[in-house]
């Protein structure tokens, strides 16, 4: 499917969800839906670096918080509309993502993961000691009650996060099906072989850290308006780091659809648990599901689905490939010749 058609379908689905939430006539659905959509963006962003490139980032909360605190800083200087704040948050977090990528160029595996964790700790310490954005006391943003033509402000925030989620998914899908996506996959599989095949691994890693960081920052930018009172412990919450890893792992990391499924499934479960049991069980749910999936379906729900339809490679094959293989070597191909991209 062409990317413009995909984007259109995403927008239509997003519009339908928005209309459905309005039809339910209760603003709580917008509050809960906002969180789920925020996780869709975070997990999709995490997956660009962690899933496509195989670099596990434990510092998602830091990028998210950077977006949120850039909103606080700009709001104090000169209040601006949220779409502009999204861009600022994205730029700040993207620049930090680029810097993190540059400083950790030669770190891999656990060493890279620890470096990202260290980044989160360093940034949280900086924010706690930066009075301009509230420091350890936190900062308030008084959210308007209503905004035309959406009615309540939470509907407006929900719509913005919905558009951001659509944008993040479209970007992830575009990457996945592009030359860049192939390059990311080679980094995940074998960097040495990738370099030997002409792939500029360091440059691609920088691109991945920048895009991933920018999207996480954009997810964080409207957060102060959502929560009204931002403090370091809420912006740098462990929930963001854990969920943004767990959701793609549960959904499946090799495709854009994995983080989406994981975020919708886990995010909704958490929201239901929050109102029916307690918000304290959120991470318990994540833990149980993660352990279960690691044991039963290490490739996530998408992997289970592939296994179900049959054992087939995840690679892309276009029309020429299909035709020629079918014509030249009938019966020699192990699986169906059409299917999802890597």
């Amino acid at each position, binding site marked *: 499917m062409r990317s413009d058609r995909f984007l259109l379908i995403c927008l239509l689905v997003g519009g339908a969800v928005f209309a459905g939430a309005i039809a339910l006539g209760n603003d709580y659905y917008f509050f809960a839906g906002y969180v789920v959509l925020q996780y869709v963006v975070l997990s999709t962003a995490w997956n660009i670096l962690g899933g496509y490139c195989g670099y596990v980032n434990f510092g998602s909360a830091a990028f998210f918080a950077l977006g949120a605190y850039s909103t606080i800083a700009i709001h104090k200087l000169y209040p601006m509309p949220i779409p502009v704040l999204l861009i600022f948050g994205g730029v700040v977090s993207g620049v930090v993502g680029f810097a993190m990528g540059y400083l950790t160029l030669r770190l891999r595996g656990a060493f890279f993961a620890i470096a990202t964790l260290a980044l989160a700790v360093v940034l949280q310490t900086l924010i706690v000691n930066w009075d301009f954005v509230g420091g350890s006391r936190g900062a308030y943003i008084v959210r308007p009650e209503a905004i035309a033509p959406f009615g309540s402000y939470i509907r407006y925030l929900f719509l913005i996060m919905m558009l951001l989620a659509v944008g993040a998914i479209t970007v992830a899908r575009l990457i996945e099906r592009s030359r860049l996506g*192939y390059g990311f996959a080679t980094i995940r599989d*074998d960097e040495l072989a*990738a*370099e030997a095949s002409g792939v500029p691994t360091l440059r691609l890693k920088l691109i991945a850290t920048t895009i991933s960081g920018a999207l996480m920052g954009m997810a964080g930018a409207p957060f102060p308006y959502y929560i009204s009172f931002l403090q370091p412990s809420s912006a740098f919450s462990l929930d963001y780091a854990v969920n943004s890893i767990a959701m793609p792992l549960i959904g499946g990391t090799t495709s854009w659809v994995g983080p989406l499924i994981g975020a919708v499934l886990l995010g909704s479960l958490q929201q239901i648990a929050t109102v029916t049991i307690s918000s304290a069980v959120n991470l318990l749910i994540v833990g149980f599901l993660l352990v279960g999936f690691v044991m039963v379906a290490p490739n996530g729900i998408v992997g289970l689905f592939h296994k179900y339809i049959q054992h087939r490679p*995840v690679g892309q094959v276009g029309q*020429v490939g299909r035709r020629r293989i079918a014509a030249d070597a009938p019966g020699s191909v192990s699986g169906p010749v059409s299917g999802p991209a*890597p």
Partner: protein
Amino acid sequence: MTQLLEVDNLGKRFGGFVALENISLAVRPGECVGLIGPNGSGKSTLVNCICGTLHNEAGSVHFDGHLLDGSTAHQRTRRGLARTFQLPRPFASLCLLDNVRIPLLYTVEARGARRSAPDIEARCLDLLREVGLEGKALQLPRDLTQVEMRKLELARAMAAEPKLLIADESMAGLTHSEVEEILGLLKRLNGQGVTIILIEHIMSAVMSFSQRLVVLVSGRKIADGEPNEVVRNPEVERAYLGQ
């Protein structure tokens, strides 16, 4: 004649261990050079230094008239220097077709040769057909046998359209007939104008393939010349052939 590859007084250390010492080597375009030596003699280190995986501390490497020192591995590949690995390193999550697609996307296109997606795919299938893997184009590398894995490595190296291919023990662990298959592929590639450096322990294969033989022992080059003369060299016999 201008040399395609010129290695000049190359040196490499790992801490206190001298892996390569003053290695000089020149390879002409179209030549088939065998590189032999006992385990630990520095063959793979030399390949890694030439290909940019490791950086040499002394000496220089020129390829096709360009000084390669300081350039990264992918830049060297784009200049036309391809390699296979001693232990096959396929891209495990990509099907064979995509494994071969990568060098076409990142090496050949980087040289300015823009191709449409169907053209690239057609070329990938041609390469897989050349090594006899077209029928498995959509399978993952984990489904391949050892010899097929070696063939995939060769196909991927060929996809980069190299001027020089360094085949690092491409026949290790293969049966006699499989060795003949790989040798046939390398000869065909050489027939297409690709210069080849063959690193191998299987002497019959090296002797039948190489126009020139280079011998490394303990990081030093001890012989370089016509294969039949080199194997009669007393120092080579003592150090490598054990006679």
